[in-house]
C-alpha cells in the first residue's frame, strides 16, 4: 500500500522542462523501493494532480523551476512555500496547478503530511532540445535530496547491484532504448 509518491513533473518534449521525469527514470533505474513508495512519471498533470496526491503521507515532486539562480541549481520547497502562492486566474484547465491541488487536498482533509518539491532551475525549453549539461550535472544532487527525505521519513530503499538502463525513451529513437510496442 503506497503512502509515499515520488513524481516526476514536466514535459519531456520541451528541453529542460523534462528534468522531472528524467530524474525519476534515473532514480528507478538505480534503486529498489518498497510497496509503500510509488514512482510515477506524471507528465504535466495540472488539476489531475489532485487525484495522485490525496491520502498520501509523503509527496515528493521533481520539477523544473524558474528562478534567478543559475541553471542546474537545486532548490527545495515545502508545503507552506507552495501554499503561499495564490491560484492564478484560470482560462484553461491546463495551467500548472500545484498550489491549487494541495489546497483542494487540504479542503478534502486528505493533504499529504510531508511535501517536498525538488526544483531544478531550467535553462533551455526549446521543443526537442536535449537536457542542458548544467541540469544533467544536478541529477545526483536531486536524487540525494529525494533519498534524504525518504530516509528521514523512515522509508526503506536499496541500491541495485547493477543499475538498469534508464527508460528515457524520448531522448533517442524509441526502438533503440526500449520496446514499448509488442
Amino acid at each position, binding site marked *: 500500500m503506497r503512502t509515499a509518491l515520488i513524481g516526476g513533473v514536466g514535459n519531456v518534449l520541451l528541453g529542460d522542462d523534462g528534468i522531472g521525469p528524467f530524474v525519476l527514470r534515473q532514480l528507478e533505474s538505480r534503486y529498489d523501493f518498497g510497496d509503500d513508495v510509488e514512482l510515477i512519471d506524471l507528465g504535466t498533470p495540472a488539476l489531475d494532480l489532485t487525484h495522485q496526491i490525496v491520502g498520501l503521507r509523503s509527496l515528493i515532486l521533481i520539477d523544473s523551476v524558474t528562478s534567478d539562480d543559475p541553471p542546474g541549481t537545486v532548490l527545495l520547497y515545502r508545503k507552506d512555500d507552495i501554499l503561499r502562492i495564490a491560484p492564478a486566474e484560470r*482560462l484553461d484547465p*491546463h495551467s500548472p496547478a500545484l498550489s491549487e491541488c494541495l489546497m483542494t487536498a487540504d479542503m478534502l482533509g486528505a493533504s499529504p503530511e510531508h511535501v517536498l518539491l525538488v526544483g531544478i532551475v531550467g535553462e533551455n525549453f526549446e521543443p526537442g532540445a536535449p537536457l542542458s549539461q548544467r541540469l544533467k550535472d544536478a541529477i545526483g544532487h536531486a536524487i540525494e535530496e529525494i533519498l534524504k527525505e525518504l530516509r528521514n521519513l523512515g522509508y526503506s530503499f536499496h541500491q541495485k547491484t547493477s543499475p538498469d538502463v534508464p527508460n528515457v525513451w524520448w531522448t533517442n529513437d524509441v526502438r533503440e532504448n526500449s520496446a*514499448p510496442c509488442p
Partner: protein
Amino acid sequence: MAKRITIDPITRIEGHLRIDVEVDNNAVSNAWASCTMWRGIEKILRGRDPRDAWMFTQRFCGVCTTVHAMASVRSVEDALKLEVPLNAQYIRNLILIAHALHDHIVHFYQLSALDWVDVLQIPSADAAATSKLAESLSPWTRNSRNELKAAQDRVNAVASSGQLGIFANGYWGHPAMKLSPEVNLLAFSHYVQALEYQRKALQVVGILGSKTPHIQNLTVGGVANAIDLDSQAALGMDKLEMIRTLLAEVTQFVQQVYFVDVCAVASMYAEWFKIGSGVKNYLAVPDLPLDSRGSSYDLPGGYIHEGDLAEVKTFQTAADPAFRQAVTEDVIHAYYQGDKPLHPWNGETEPAFTGWDGDQKYSWVKAPRYNGEPAQVGPLAQVLIGYSQGHALTRKYTDLAIDKIAAISGIRATPAALHSTLGRHAARAIRACMLAELAQKHWQLLVDNIAKGDYSVYNQPVLPSHEVQGVGTHEAPRGTLSHWVVIKDEKIKNYQAVVPSTWNASPRDKAGARGPYEASLLRTPLARPEEPLEVLRTVHSFDPCMACACHTFDPSGRRIAVAKIL
C-alpha cells in the same frame, strides 16, 4: 471611447490563452484570442518511426494525453489502410469514453462552475432547505442535509481562515452572480463530489491503459492488452467487472448530478442562451467505431453551415473525403511564415514572431478553415449535428434537457437557443449523458465479443517504402482533433496536429473572419469591465486548452496580469 482589456494569466514561461477585448458602453465591441507561446512540437516527429509517434504525441498535452495517442495511431492506420480488430476498437472506445467523462466533469465543476456559483454566499445557505430543493430536482442519494452541511463547513473553514486559498481567484459578490445561497451550496457540494467521480472515470482509463497519465496499451494496428478471462494479470473478468462498476457509478453521477446541475444553472441564467453565439459553422467527426474497418460509428459527424440545421452535411467515416480534403490552415495573423492557406499534409511550422499586433500578427495559433471558413468544434457542434441528422441518442438527451429546463424555469428552449454560451454547457452535459450510456454498450460489446472466443487485439502493420498519407481523427472532449501524417521510407516525413482549440481559438484569417472565441465575445454585456466575469463565462464555455506544453513551476507566484485595462 473604447477601453481595451487584456486577460493574460501567464505566471510562467509556457504559453497560454490570452484574450483582448475592447469595451464600449459596457459591452464587448471587438475581441482577439491568442496563444502566447510557440510549440512546434510536431517537428520533433520528423524522421522517426511512425509506429512510435503516439508515444511522443501524447506528451503534447498534460491533460488530454490519451486523445493525442489515439489520433496518432489512427493516422498511421489510415495511411497504411490497416484494420483494427473488434476487441481493440471496443477497448479504445471505452478508454475514450472514460477519458471524456472525466474531462467533461472536470470542466463543468472545477473549471467553470465557479463562474456562475458564488462561493461566498454559501455560509448563509440553509442546508435543510437546500436538501429539499435538491430532492425536487434529482433522485441522487447524496443530497442529504448532512452531506450538504459538510460541504458548507468546508467553505466556512476556508472563508473563516481569512485567506481564500483555493477560492482566491473568483469574482465573488459580482453583480452578474444570481443564484440563491441554497443553489450555490448545492452546486458546491457537487463540486466536491465531482472530484471523486472524475477519479473513478480516470481509474477506468488506468485499468485499460495500464497507466494514467500516458496510457501504455496502444499500438499501431490495435492494443497491447492481453485478453484472458481467467487471469488477474491480463484483461480478465476481474478487471472487466471493476470497469463495469466504475462506469456505472460515473454514469449515475453524470445523469443525476452533472446533467441536472447544468439544467438548473441554465434555468436561472436563461439570458445566457442569447449571449455568446459567434461562429455558427459547426464541425464534428464520427467516432466510436463499431467495426474493424471504421465504417459505422456510435457518434455522428458532419458539418453545419451558418446555423442552417436543415442542410446539415453528413460524414460517413472518421476520415471522410469531405473532411480530409476541406481542411486548410491560414497564418496571415499567426506568427508563422507563409501567405497562403496550406493543407495539413503540406503544412509548415516556420516561426516569424513579431509581437502582438491586433491588425497584423497576434497569435501562435494558426487559423484552421473548413472549405475556407472558420468552424466551431466541441460538444455543441456534435450535438447540433447529431440532432439535425435525427441521431436517436442525441435527440433523447437534448429533448430531456429542454424538458428539464422547461420544468424548472418555465422557459422552453429550442435547439436554436443552443447557439450560445449556455448552449455549450448544455451540449457538453448532453454529450456526457450519451457517452455514459454508450459506455455500458461498449463494455457489453467487448464482453460479448470475447465470449465468442475472439481474443484478437492487434494486426501487424507493414510500412510501405513509397510515400503514403493518413489522417487520424478523434472527436475529443473539446471537439474535432486530427493528426496528419506523411510517411516515406518507413519514416515520418511530415506531421501536423490540428487540435480542437486551434479551431476555436483561431485568429482571424486573410478575409478577416474571426475565430469562434473572438466572434462569440462580441456584444457580451459587462457589468463591471474591470472584473470581466462575463468574458470568462463565454471563453470557459468552450473548454479552452491552449498550453499543451510546458509546466515549469514559478515559486515566486508572479502574476503578470489578471485583467489589465489599457
